């Protein structure tokens, strides 16, 4: 009896993540995808066709014939969408690289710190999450604006005599993304560095590596899993980021999150914004699938 129960329990444990994915990812995605095939309408909800469950199977089939790929064709016709996608990927890419360049030394320092203070350092990395994300982004406006804290400071120590224009440029977006997503990069890198055997570095030194080349030949390659995880955790949300470009970026900054928000709220065009969201998902998912395939292949090659 107990064995049956424990077998059942272990099944249940496996089901939970799948159920989570089904209810909170696949079904919502399917709904979005279905809306993307519809046409906009002045109605509630603002698109057609709307399925009527009482129409029976034939009714549903009838309605389904109204689906079209028009919205996707529309996305290719207006260069605005293409530009928004490209500039989102570029901005997210630059931000991810900047985040990595700052997060790696931080994680490295944490992993090399005495064991007793590591929990405190971890705590400090997570600490900003205790304040609202919006408030933290707003705070950057006060820092970056022409008469803001940064310019006041730089001018008071005579580094510059004209205030720097940072707010409402892409630089402000980079700063905002780097600041907001830093912990997502630090934590996976830290965890991969922290569990690394330090005698590996000693072995590299012993075999003739300078500390610098030991880092590049041993430490860094072995922390790659953490680096990749961190980059994905930063890059993926940064591509679709809306709040940071909206608050810190300029009016000419084109990012897909902002475009999506405009289509959805200002234009009230749910089908087009759904199509934008679907393409965004494909842009993000397809490279990751390829990447993971390649990695699995590389892993099994040594066998």
């Amino acid at each position, binding site marked *: 009896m107990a064995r049956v129960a424990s077998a059942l329990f272990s099944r249940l444990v496996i089901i939970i993540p799948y159920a989570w994915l089904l209810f909170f990812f696949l079904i919502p995605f399917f709904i979005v995808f279905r809306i993307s095939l519809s046409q906009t309408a002045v109605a509630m909800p603002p698109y057609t066709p709307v399925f009527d469950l009482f129409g029976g199977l034939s009714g549903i089939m009838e309605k389904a014939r109204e689906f079209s790929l028009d919205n996707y064709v529309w996305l290719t016709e207006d260069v605005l969408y293409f530009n928004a996608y490209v500039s989102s990927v570029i901005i997210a890419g630059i931000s991810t690289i900047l985040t990595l360049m700052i997060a790696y030394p931080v994680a490295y320092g944490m992993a090399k710190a005495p064991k007793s203070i590591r929990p405190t350092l971890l705590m400090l990395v997570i600490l900003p999450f205790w304040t609202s994300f919006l408030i933290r982004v707003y705070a950057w406006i006060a820092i970056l604006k022409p008469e803001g804290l940064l310019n006041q400071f730089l001018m008071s120590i005579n580094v510059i005599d004209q205030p720097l224009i940072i707010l409402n440029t892409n630089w402000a977006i980079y700063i905002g993304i780097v600041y907001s997503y830093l912990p997502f990069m630090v934590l996976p890198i830290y965890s991969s560095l922290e569990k690394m055997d330090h005698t590996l570095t000693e072995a590299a030194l012993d*075999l003739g*590596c300078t500390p610098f080349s030991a880092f590049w030949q041993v430490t860094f390659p*072995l922390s790659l899993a953490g680096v990749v995880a961190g980059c994905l955790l930063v890059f993926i949300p940064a591509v679709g980021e809306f709040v940071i470009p909206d608050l810190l970026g300029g009016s000419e900054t084109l990012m897909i999150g902002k475009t999506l928000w405009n289509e959805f709220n200002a234009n009230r065009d749910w089908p087009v914004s759904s199509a934008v969201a679907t393409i965004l998902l494909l842009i993000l998912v397809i490279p990751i699938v390829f990447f993971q395939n390649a990695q699995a292949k590389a892993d099994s090659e040594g066998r």
Partner: protein
Amino acid sequence: MKSLGSIRRSFAPWADPASKPFISVRNVTKRFGDFTAVDDLSLDIYTREFFALLGASGCGKSTLLRMLAGFEQPTSGEIILDGQSLAGIPPYRRPVNMMFQSYALFPHMTVETNIAFGLKQDGMPKADIAERVGQMLKLVKLEKFAKRKPHQLSGGQRQRVALARSLAKRPKVLLLDEPLGALDKKLREETQFELMDLQQELGLTFVVVTHDQEEAMTMADRIAVMSHGKVVQVATPAEIYEAPNSRFVADFIGDVNIFDGTVSAAENGYLRIETGNGFPVRMASPDRPAVGAKAAVAIRPEKIRVSRQAPAHAPVNAVEGEIWDIGYLGDMTVFHIRLKDGRVVKASLLNAVRAVEDPFGYDQQVWISFGEDAGVVLKD
């Protein structure tokens, strides 16, 4: 193997005042905070020597090895290698290589690239690297495993890769930190002899750290027994075993019976010692302590005879007791014999002849005795 044995016996540069040490550790002290790991230690190691640092964990042997490798700097004193002081020379510029206890193989590299790693750092041409790696793989019999990653190897194979990697650069000195510690007993015994052969073949100087006295005895030309950051005795395995210079060494290496007493007479290289166990001992000794001085006699179990009858020299070097415990080990039998005062003496008999029944039984009254040169007199 036979000729090898005779080479090893005649190899004794430490006994020759004209020979110069290859590694010279001079008054080296290493402190970590207020803990002294190595305490004013001096040692000489000669070219082509297989030198073992033996001691319990925390005795400072690993710290000394790490100072030789360059991972730790001495707090005071200096280490001289081949006439050059190693002070301030980082590990990557020292002509020594180390084999780590955990092997420290790079998990993201294949066996081949692991072995080639050190050569690549030296900027050796690719073709030469390939050739050397091939030699090394052959040396450790891992040709078939060149493309494997460390996690796809057994413990013994990993140990060989680690050895090949540390030997690939042909270091002047190879440092081995508990090289066989992670292997099971049978494999360990095989590998001991392989390491010895390898060291002979390559003509290298090996410094091995171990806590396993059997390992040290088997492999080393000389052993330094360490305790609390100091060297207690440096000598050949036979000297360490047969002529320990202190109670610590006698007790640390192998089994021993120690009888405490006072010197009552000294003549012609022999001492008479009245032991506290109710029998006098006459023992050969080069020293001549004063009459009345405290002395201890250390006798190994295999040098104690057990007999039913009192030997002719009784009561000198002989005493009666009762067989208390018998441990049959196959190749020999260990007897625990209880004396009248309750003291238990260990004696071991080699089972040179096949016999199903033990020569002695439990609770039997027996005599134990030993010759006048069977033991060593310890001063403390």
